[in-house]
């Protein structure tokens, strides 16, 4: 098993944390993982992305040329990475942030997820990334949903632990979509 | 309202600085002064290493980029080739008061006829908020996570006071840019500093108390207040040398 995932969007959307949640979940299930963030001048422009690899075997380059999965939280992000997605791979795109037109015109296998809006209704935009991870789990069985709960305790600051039940509800919602 | 016109010496582009950062204001003020003195054709600026590393993209006159802390030495070279030109360095507190301490002290000691604009924001902006030599006592930074402790990290450097002790430094003033009133007096100081250089009197420097909302983790409004409440307390504004000079 080897999954190469790019998560892309704007700073403040929880892009880098989502990557860490995936990586920590992978470790908790005994897998190898790498997490590589965009850093430097790119960050100043407000964009954020990270490359996450989860594998049973040894991981080569942490930098992904052709992802199996692209999780897109903005339109510029899909414009930048779409063409690199493997033919056997797929895209998870946020419906409202990426836009219906863009999603409809994509030549790759693409899932339109109403994550940001649903997260807003749940009271916090941070849940959007968990909805996305839920959908990722559904499509790939990359790890067990329970593992994410343990990962959240490791990744989130203690003062955010009280939100974990809601995070898990968002994850479950994503798995239904 | 001629004041609101875009200064000729400033490129018409969007700067990369964060909202509420003093760098952008300082650039504008310098450009206005240069316009008013009519020296666009003979000014040469030296960019240093810090958030303003690429300000040669924003100023519309000749500039040269220097290694971290070395701007006063580079300026010395530039000035000695064309003594008739007006040469200035633009340096942050990490650049000027840490790694570049020797260069600034000796440029002043030589009475080098250059001007330094010293942006003191009490932190390393570019590299994500480490302690600077000018970080205040108790101030939390990424390398003083428990607050600057004088028993471990010593005391903030008062560069204007230090430089004013040097005979070759003839004009030394500390200003702030956190509100309009202070910006106007900062502009007067910067203009005078350039005039001192043009009169061939010696080394001149203006220390500008500045904001770094991003790394202070404050809003732009709270940052301005932080300058007023904390920085101005430790770093007293005013002229330290050369107020009497008629230029």
């Amino acid at each position, binding site marked *: 098993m080897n999954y190469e995932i790019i998560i892309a969007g704007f700073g403040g959307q929880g892009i880098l944390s989502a990557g860490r949640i995936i990586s920590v979940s992978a470790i908790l299930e005994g897998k190898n993982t790498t997490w590589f963030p965009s850093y430097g001048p790119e960050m100043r422009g407000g964009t954020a992305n990270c490359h996450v690899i989860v594998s049973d075997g040894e991981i*080569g380059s942490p930098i992904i040329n052709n992802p199996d999965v692209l999780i897109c939280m903005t339109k510029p992000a899909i414009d930048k990475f779409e063409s690199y997605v493997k033919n056997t791979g797929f895209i998870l795109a946020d419906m409202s942030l990426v836009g219906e037109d863009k999603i409809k015109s994509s030549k790759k296998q693409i899932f339109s997820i109403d994550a940001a809006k649903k997260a807003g209704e749940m009271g916090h935009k941070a849940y959007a990334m968990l909805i996305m991870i839920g959908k990722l789990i559904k499509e790939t069985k990359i790890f067990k949903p329970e593992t994410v709960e343990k990962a959240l305790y490791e990744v989130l600051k203690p003062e955010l632990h009280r939100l974990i039940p809601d995070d898990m509800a968002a994850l479950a919602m994503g798995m239904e979509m | 309202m001629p004041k609101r016109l875009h200064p000729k010496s400033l490129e018409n582009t969007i700067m990369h600085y964060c909202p509420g950062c003093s760098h952008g204001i300082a650039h504008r003020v310098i450009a206005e002064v240069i316009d008013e003195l009519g020296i666009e054709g003979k000014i040469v600026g030296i960019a240093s*290493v810090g958030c303003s*590393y690429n300000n040669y993209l924003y100023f519309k006159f000749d500039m040269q980029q220097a290694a971290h*802390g070395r701007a006063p030495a580079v300026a010395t070279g530039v000035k000695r080739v064309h003594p008739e030109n007006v040469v200035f360095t633009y340096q942050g507190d990490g650049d000027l008061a840490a790694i570049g301490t020797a260069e600034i002290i000796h440029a002043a000691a030589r009475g080098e006829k250059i001007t330094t604009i010293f942006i003191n924001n009490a932190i390393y902006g570019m590299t994500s908020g*480490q302690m600077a030599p000018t970080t205040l006592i108790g101030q939390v930074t990424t390398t003083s996570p428990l607050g600057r402790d004088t028993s471990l990290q010593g005391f903030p450097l008062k560069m204007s006071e230090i430089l004013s002790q040097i005979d070759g430094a003839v004009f030394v003033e500390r200003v702030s840019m956190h509100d309009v009133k202070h910006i106007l007096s900062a502009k007067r100081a910067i203009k005078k500093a350039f005039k001192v250089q043009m009169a061939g009197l010696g080394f001149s420097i203006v220390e500008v108390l500045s904001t770094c909302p991003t790394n202070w983790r404050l809003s732009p409004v709270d940052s301005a207040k932080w300058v007023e409440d904390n920085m101005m307390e430790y770093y007293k504004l005013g002229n330290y040398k050369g107020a009497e000079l008629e230029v």
Partner: protein
Amino acid sequence: MPKKVLIKGNEAIGEAIIRAGCRHYFGYPITPQNELTNYMSKYMPEAGGVFIQAESEIAAINMVYGAAGAGARAITSSSSPGISLKQEGISYIAGAEVPAVVVNVMRCGPGLGGIMPGQSDYFQAVKGGGHGDYRNIVLAPNNGQELYELTVKAFDLADKYRVLVMVMADGALGQMMENVEFKDKETPYKIDKPWATTGSGMKRKKNYITSVYINPDELEAVNIRLQAKYKEIEKEEVLFEETDCEGADIIICAYGLAARITRNVMKLAAEESIKVGLLRPITLWPFPKDAVGSLADKTDVIMSVELSAGQMVEDVRLAVNGKKPVHFYGRTGGNLPTQKEILNEIKRVLEKEVK
């Protein structure tokens, strides 16, 4: 059982420093190694150690010279432009035979350059950097685990030979997170340092540490001793990793991040029935000369892949010594070669060299 943790490369180095028993860190901020300096500012005091943010890289390396001369394990870290500034101190440390460790999380140059990953400090690290006839041991980790283990090892090697050891990573390795397993307990190499400037306590003759010898014969004797020590290190301490080299169509020499990218290329190439081998130097100095030289018996074409304009390739050519063609592929400016690019270059080279 030791636990696997997800940790940034820069912080894995920080953890290694503390677990190796080093209690003296001197740094100065520079991207992309800032997380290491920040980590030290928090955890060094917690471990009862000394953290100083120096006024410059020059000051930091000289603090290392002083602390290591006084008998402590001491380290400084920086990235390319800062490492250039340290070269004077590094030369003095080599001349005075003081054991010290320096970390370089490379970005790309020349000049202020950029902050993205690079490997363009190879010449500086392995051929000297500062003035004089000296060598540093240069270790090139290629993942989080090695960042940790080789940093621990760096202190042992420094103490064993009284040399400076450089750990050379790059911005990507420093910035990425990976699963790393820390040993429950490290057992640092222990050696007496009777030469250290600890204060004589009136119990021994005075010690002095210096690199200045005005008398040519004295200085030559020092140089002869240094060279003998370097010979021994070349004999004893070479590290490398060889993968699928026997009978390969082409063998790639690459270290650090470039080696990791190459590993993916090997799989990609296998799908097209091209057999690619990898020789990964782990010590850049001492360079695995014999291992690289013997590649000529295992394949017909050798290629060096680097994040530079071609630096290690010179050592590869020296080692292969004309027995087989040696090619080069690299990218600069912080751009990383893609797997496809490297594969295309492999095909182009094979077409040219193999009839």
